[in-house]
């Protein structure tokens, strides 16, 4: 029999698992999915309202291969700016994609097909699935320095060196905001320097923006890195996701865009992106796209969404502050400044795998072994317990 020798795949330990709540003493801080202050999943009000409007009556005909036009229009506005001349000049080739993963995969396949000799530079560390995506697309990978463990911050000097040393015209994967898993973002000034060096070397910038709005609470501010690059005239690529900022996780709705020289090229590039999507899934799922376009197309709903995103981001920022203050109050000998300096859903605590294991076995707190805490799972109810546990494990230095 042919399938007898099929080996088993053990899931990557860093992989997000579905939320499960088993007993009150378990704290699950693994996955990147937002929870409210009671630790429950959240469906945004604006989403519920959008669903009410679309339920049961919209027909379910196939979307065009490139996806929902309305949704794409609204989505590129978010990334590039409402008044972007690139939009007016129709220079952006954009297609609806299967959330951030699908957008990255489409781009990786596109890169493989049209720049077959190129590689992708990926930061260390990064979201684990980035490696899988470019590998399955058969694009060779290299890494660049990013995280500085000693300071729990950005290794800017090494990062700039890597950019300078990469051969001209290399492709780089950049996290636009709220770097996953570290939460460490370059400052505005640092982004400007990165952009400048990219110009000198003629590198291609591919932004993975999975947390717009979620990082600072303000989508415009979270897109700053992209805007800096656009101002400098870079022709970028961008993956966008509504999984987190609209809470549409399971709907798989996102967008891939590529900035082109002119409208004609944008049309050609879009046609090729569609050509890659057709043998993968034919056309993308409609439901999430309808929710997005309903919300972003209605001024009141959009306003509500912006408020709800800010609320989510604020709650997380509040939990960061609380965690840090708790640890400092407990008299920890270590610095926990990074907890509030880092941004977005994740905190790279700096704990070792062994310390994480102890956190789990002794305190029933679940993290990924790289020490990444999903702040989205921290609540006023458990932050004290969490701080106490971390302190116990780390107080001996």
């Amino acid at each position: 029999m042919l399938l007898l020798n099929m080996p088993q795949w053990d899931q990557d330990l860093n992989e997000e698992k579905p939320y499960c709540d088993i007993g009150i003493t378990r704290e699950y801080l693994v996955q990147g999915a937002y929870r409210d202050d009671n630790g429950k999943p959240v469906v945004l009000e604006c989403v519920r309202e959008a669903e009410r409007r679309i339920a049961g009556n919209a027909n379910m005909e196939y979307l065009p291969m490139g996806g929902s036009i309305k949704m794409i229009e609204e989505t590129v506005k978010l990334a590039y700016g409402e008044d972007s001349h690139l939009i007016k000049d129709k220079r952006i080739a954009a297609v609806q994609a299967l959330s951030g993963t699908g957008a990255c995969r489409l781009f990786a396949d596109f890169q493989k097909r049209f720049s077959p000799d190129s590689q992708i530079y990926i930061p260390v560390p990064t979201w684990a699935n980035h490696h899988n995506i470019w590998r399955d697309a058969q694009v060779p990978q290299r890494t660049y320095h990013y995280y500085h463990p000693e300071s729990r911050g950005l290794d800017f000097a090494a990062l700039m060196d890597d950019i300078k040393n990469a051969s001209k015209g290399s492709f780089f994967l950049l996290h636009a905001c709220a770097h996953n898993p570290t939460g460490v973002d370059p400052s505005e000034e640092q982004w400007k320097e990165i952009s400048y060096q990219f110009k000198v070397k003629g590198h291609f910038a591919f932004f993975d923006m999975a947390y717009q709005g979620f990082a600072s609470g303000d989508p415009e501010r979270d897109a700053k890195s992209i805007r800096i690059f656009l101002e400098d005239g870079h022709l970028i690529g961008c993956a966008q996701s509504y999984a987190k900022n609209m809470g549409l996780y399971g709907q798989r709705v996102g967008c891939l865009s590529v900035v082109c020289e002119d409208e004609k090229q944008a049309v050609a590039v879009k046609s090729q992106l569609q050509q890659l999507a057709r043998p993968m899934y034919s056309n993308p799922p409609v439901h999430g796209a309808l929710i997005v376009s309903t919300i972003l197309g209605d001024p009141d709903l959009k306003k509500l969404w912006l408020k709800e995103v800010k609320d989510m981001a604020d709650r997380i920022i509040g939990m960061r502050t609380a965690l840090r203050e708790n640890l400092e109050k407990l008299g920890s000998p270590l610095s926990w400044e990074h907890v509030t300096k880092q941004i977005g859903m994740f905190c790279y605590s700096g704990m070792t795998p062994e310390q994480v294991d102890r956190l789990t076995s002794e305190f029933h707190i679940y993290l990924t072994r790289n020490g990444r805490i999903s702040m989205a799972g921290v609540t006023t109810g458990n932050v004290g317990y969490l701080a106490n546990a971390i302190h116990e494990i780390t107080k001996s230095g």
Partner: protein
Amino acid sequence: MASTMLSLASASASPSTSLALQNNRMTKLILGTSDHTTLWGTKKSNPFVKTKSRGQITMAVAVNVSRFEGIPMAPPDPILGVSEAFKADTDEMKLNLGVGAYRTEELQPYVLDVVKKAENLMLERGENKEYLPIEGLAAFNKVTADLLFGADNPVIQQQRVATVQGLSGTGSLRLAAALIERYFPGAKVIISSPTWGNHKNIFNDARVPWSEYRYYDPKTVGLDFDGMMSDIKEAPEGSFVLLHGCAHNPTGIDPTPEQWEKIADVIQEKNHIPFFDVAYQGFASGSLDADASSVRLFAARGMELLVAQSYSKNLGLYSERIGAINVLCSSADAAVRTKSQLKRLARPMYSNPPIHGARIVANVVGNPALFDEWKEEMEMMAGRIKSVRQKLFDSLTAKDKSGKDWSFILKQIGMFSFTGLNKAQSDNMTNRWHVYMTKDGRISLAGLSSAKCEYLADAIIDSFHNVK
């Protein structure tokens, strides 16, 4: 960097063109027509712009040209492109017989009542939108395998079926293709001639070699059974044989039960692996069980097989992209391992599948009352197609004085009919009669109303007799 850009451009252009391109870029820069060059004024405040910047500026701006300059326009999709052309047509007699999407007699899209009910139930329950696991919604996977094999089938009881939710039929086929590429390196897939246009794209992009087996016999407008058997025998041992479970797309020609037995015989002889594409379960005969009989026949023989399923047509969930890949293995253990590898392939494609369609299916197929209602709606849809087949046949027979035998229209099954029209004749259908169809002569009866049967008959007769 500059050389990289130009080499990309020259891949699709003559050397003189690429030189012209280079000149154009330089011209652009000198004239400063690109918006992005004007920002250099602000760079004076940037501490990293040093005195040497003049030379650097020229070079740096020069590289802000697209990496993808030479990319050509992709051709329109032969199937999905038809609908797009149809939309652009302003003629009032136009008829879209292109894509296989069911239409009512009024030629409107149809959302099934059971689907509306399921969606309203879901809305009331106010479920969350958390990520599904990579393999999809468990409730969906269960009802899907049950629907295909029958809930009391031993293969289900023995847990030998690995089911992973996929992005409709396409996505499920793609996952299977990726599995073949990774775990059966060098193995070939043989596909019917003709077959659904996207099959080839899927195997090409998944880097799985394929070749064709004879299927359609233009002389009889029926199945070339001997050719099919011979070609399956000829294929290297251990090939994957892509079979349409029911309602063959594009021909509408299915093997008879006796022929299915013989096909299974030769596949077993050659140690091939059957790979079913089941996109029309329920839509062929009107009966969900009857339409699954080919798959069940193979399963009953103890064979290992793959089945890609889609709910696009039978539940009208086209744009929700809901389907599944099933792998029937020889043991429960192999099924567990196979499922894990399918997940590993899905993760870097889209992480986890979309939830909405899966919930609808689980609610309809898993609820006895709704399931019964669905069966009725299924019979109604399949029934409408059968009746337009009849009406089209009647119109053709009445109008065509040449004595040509049009009975193949009644013998074919499912949404499609292979008319036997060639490309030129199909073009005539579109250009003269505003009837949109695919160039292989396939018409979708799901897009035909009984009111339009006579018009269509006129178009077909004209194209067949007057165009070579």
